[in-house]
């Protein structure tokens, strides 16, 4: 292990870690938004909406995220969508993870006991009131842990924007491997930073989950 080299290059990796964090946050927000709308559509009374959401989930879960990123970044200009690599990576990853989150959120909502809906409706609540006041609060508690799994996958998934040259952790490792020919040192730095990010986020999710269970 070449410690001198590590000490020389680590500031670049810290900077790259910030890009990875930024990407993760934006992707998670976009993914949650897509997931919430997707789940609402999947559970809608309108068949068209259900059908569109099912197609969204099937297509985005059925093809590689890397290809989705390439289609948007390299193929986008052909249909008039010109995005820089960071924006293209964020949007493609966010919409991709949104498909997984759609299923997670839908699963949590569906798993709330049917009697809850029936009781609320019997008490005279409207469909949307029942959803907002009875079902969603219970479902929200159940979905924290599985959504945490999605977010963990998402953080590692941000590495996929390295091939379109977003200067995040994986791209930075790759670049320094090319110039120093010391892959283990570079892997060590990048890997360590990924693990720190994932650990911190994991602790945050555990904390949220614990609080949600107490309430």
């Amino acid at each position, binding site marked *: 292990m070449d410690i001198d080299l590590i000490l020389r290059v680590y500031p670049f990796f810290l900077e790259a870690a910030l890009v990875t964090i930024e990407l993760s946050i934006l992707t998670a927000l976009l993914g949650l938004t897509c997931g919430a709308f997707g789940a609402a559509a999947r559970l809608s009374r309108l068949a068209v909406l259900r059908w569109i959401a099912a197609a969204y989930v099937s*297509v985005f879960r*059925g*093809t*590689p*995220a*890397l*290809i*989705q990123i*390439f*289609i948007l970044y*390299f*193929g*986008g*200009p*052909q*249909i008039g969508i010109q995005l820089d690599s960071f924006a293209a990576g964020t949007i493609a990853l966010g919409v991709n993870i949104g498909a997984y989150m759609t299923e997670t959120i839908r699963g949590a909502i569906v798993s709330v006991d049917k009697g809850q809906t029936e009781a609320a409706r019997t008490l005279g609540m409207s469909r949307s009131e029942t959803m907002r006041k009875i079902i969603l609060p219970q479902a929200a508690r159940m979905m924290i842990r599985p959504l945490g799994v999605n977010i963990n996958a998402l953080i*590692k*998934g*941000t*590495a*996929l924007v*390295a*091939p379109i040259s977003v200067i995040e*952790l*994986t791209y930075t*490792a*790759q670049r320094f*491997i090319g110039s120093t*020919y*010391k*892959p*283990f040192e570079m*892997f060590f730095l*990048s*890997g360590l930073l*990924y*693990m720190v990010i*994932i*650990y911190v986020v994991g602790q945050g999710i555990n904390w949220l989950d614990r609080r949600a269970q107490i309430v």
Partner: protein
Amino acid sequence: MGLDFSVVPSYFGLLLMGAGWTVAITICAGILSFVGGIVFAVIALYSHWTLRLPVRAFVWLFMGTPLLLQLFLIYFGLIQVGIDLPAFLAGVIGLGLHFAVYNSELIQVSILAVDKGQYEGARTLGLSRGQTLRRVVIPQAVHAVIPPMGNNMIALLKDSALVSVIGVMELTLAAQQAISRTYRPFEFYLAAAFCYYIINLALEAGLRRLERRIAASR
């Protein structure tokens, strides 16, 4: 530049060849991840700590870092210690080990879920520890683990696209080659996505059949 899908058919052979390699990688890495998953799980549950500790460190490392970085390490990193693997082999090993780690977690849970009485019964009948695991416990655990492991196989199929980055000539790289000659990224990446989707549907159908057969054999 608008869209023109009429260029795609002339590269049909190239894409088909790429799809063939994608299937080959998925099968090879899938087998490795299955066997590796069982080995890791048994080590994690039953072995001496001198063996258990390095495996746990390995699992922790592979779960906490991106697959792409792992592929880089295996393909570019091992040269540093004198191991020069061909890209295909590096890709299969990287994907196989990555998913072996996830499979191992699933198998551990299902081994622990096998009734303890089964283990005790087998030992009482005179089977050795190894025999009990191989003939009684693991077969039952593997049954329970087929559906979630099927999900891992589907993830593996899609993640096989990543080995294009280390130069394995599979579907994604085949599409890139067609693009470098035609400058039509949208059409060819879409065609590649379509191929992945079809392979994915076939794999899902196969897994469903397998699950039904297992359910029936019980």
